[in-house]
């Protein structure tokens, strides 16, 4: 056990146990922010997220869980690839995003993204596979984003890109059970 | 610092006793470096310092087993790196022969270890001690395998 692990905050402990990242090892060089394709849209840059997570106090946690940036991580792996400390800021953001989701602290600007993720998972839970038409319908219901992309659907159908009837796998009861167990909060 | 956890002895587990013959110039200094670097390793090893591995008389090794060691480690300078030009070379040559003789008595690779550790290799020394300790722990007490011995 290293010194940094002994003296860590509850947040740092949660982050380490779920993502393997020891927050104290970040030296704030900013290479994650420099390479992040989404940093320009973020209200907190990746290195600021790492810094606040290092601080780990209540005020820091509040800012972290209510920021938009958590939801803007696109999962491109650039930050982890180039981090000179071999850390994975995106994995830290995953942990924080899950916390934010559990506490229902979703900033308005991120609601569309959450709506999309939820719609996506709902179709998988229902049939075992993602199905685009139900996904889009559900997403639009959840997000209220009715106007965008209305022209694309018909084109996609015309190009025979979308199957009208989604495929449902035989093992969908199994899939639903997996979803239910995960929802109860099993740690991997 | 990311080092292996030191094996902390508990009364219920078998704690191997390992005797190490190390040379003054390389491995002893490497062990010093492990210390100054605060690397943690298993507390089962007892070092006998010699000027050079070339000084090791095969009788020393037999004596160590006779006196209750569960394993013996010999460690000196890397080949070509001997403080005394070629002492470790002589040690290695004798060692190969000696090892064959010991194998006849049933003392094999799980009891006798040989490794090169230079003055710069603190981490290697710590890893070596942990590795040897783990292997001997697995092999069990020497006495059990060789009831004829004294201790």
């Amino acid at each position: 056990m290293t010194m940094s692990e002994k003296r860590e905050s509850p947040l740092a402990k949660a982050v380490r146990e779920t993502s393997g990242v020891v927050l104290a090892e970040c030296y704030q060089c900013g290479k994650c922010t420099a390479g992040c394709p989404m940093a320009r849209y973020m209200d907190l840059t990746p290195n600021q997220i790492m810094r606040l997570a290092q601080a780990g106090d209540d005020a820091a946690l509040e800012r972290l869980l209510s920021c938009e940036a958590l939801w803007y991580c696109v999962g491109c792996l650039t930050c982890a690839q180039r981090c000179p400390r071999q850390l994975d800021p995106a994995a830290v953001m995953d942990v924080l995003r899950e916390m934010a989701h559990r506490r229902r602290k979703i900033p308005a600007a991120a609601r569309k993204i959450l709506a999309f993720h939820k719609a996506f998972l709902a179709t998988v839970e229902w049939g075992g596979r993602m199905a685009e038409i139900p996904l889009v319908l559900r997403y639009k219901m959840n997000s209220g984003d009715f106007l965008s992309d209305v022209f694309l659907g018909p084109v996609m159908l015309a190009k025979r890109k979308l199957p009208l009837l989604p495929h449902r796998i035989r093992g969908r009861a199994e899939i639903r059970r997996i979803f239910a167990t995960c929802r109860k909060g099993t740690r991997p | 610092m990311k080092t292996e956890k030191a094996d902390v002895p508990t009364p219920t587990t078998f704690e191997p006793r390992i005797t190490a013959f190390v040379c003054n110039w390389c491995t002893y200094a490497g062990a010093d470096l492990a210390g100054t670097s605060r690397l943690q390793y298993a507390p089962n090893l007892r070092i006998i310092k010699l000027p050079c591995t070339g000084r090791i008389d095969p009788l020393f090794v037999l004596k160590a087993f006779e006196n209750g060691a569960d394993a013996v480690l010999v460690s000196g300078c890397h080949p070509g790196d001997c403080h005394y030009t070629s002492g470790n070379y002589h040690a290695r040559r004798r060692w190969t022969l000696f090892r064959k003789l010991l194998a006849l008595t049933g003392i094999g690779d799980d009891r006798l270890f040989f490794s090169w550790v230079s003055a710069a290799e603190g981490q290697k020394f710590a890893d070596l001690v942990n590795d040897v300790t783990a292997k001997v722990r697995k092999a069990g007490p020497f006495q059990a395998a060789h009831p004829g011995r004294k201790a």
Partner: protein
Amino acid sequence: MKTLGYYPGCSLSGGGIELDLSVRAIAKVAGVELREIEDWNCCGASAAHSLDHSLAVALPFRVLALAESQGLSEVLAPCAACFSRLKGTQVRLTRSPELGQRMQELVERPYNGTVRILNINEFVASLLAEGLAGKFTRKLGLKVVAYYGCLLSRGEDIVTSDDAEDPQGMAAAIRVAGCEVLPWNSSNECCGGGFSMSKTGSVLDLSQAILDEARAVGADLVVTGCPMCHSNLDMRQLELLKRRRVPGALPILYLSELLGLAAGLEPGALGLGRHFIESRQLVRGGA
């Protein structure tokens, strides 16, 4: 005949169907049988990963367990995202036997970790090794930029067959297909990934930068291996054209489509007719 496990993933039966068609087509040309994993499920993609770290491992775990129980030791996952999820899970399981134990309990299926996952570039390389180039009949003569995006270049334990900062896994195949590979910087830049619908603006910005550089270096087309990248560069290009943010249409093809064309297959059979940006003019008499 060589047999390979096949995990099409959800996109390949919907928006990314051209990838499915062309992969199956070139496998057939090369004499490789693709055996689809029976009753496979979605890998969870970025949605599961974003919201539930258990689910993000459990869904790919079921796929790996199915493949193993069906005797498939090597599985092709042409979709870059599916590949990254499946192989990423495989890597984590290798590292942590404890995680494997928990997943076996959660998913209620055994898995011994024997399945090897291939991405499209590794698959194509194996087809070339099997002599696919010998079947090429059509001279394409196109100038190509190879676009790997994120998930065919990065993930140090995942994309083990390529260099994250200078990926080359498609280059040999493109050259064998009679095309020139142009050097460019965007080969491993991000297109905006899964935010096509939920954060369209960022996808437009990022995809535009990629299309701009492709045009600046003089490419006739962009070749990719990822359905998400394809959708962002192809479908979203319509909007960039409409807003006049790009000066003209630039075709986006899957690597497997390009190879199918080189093998003399009909553009339509490979799915070229289903792209948003017309690409059939790339082969003479194709349009």
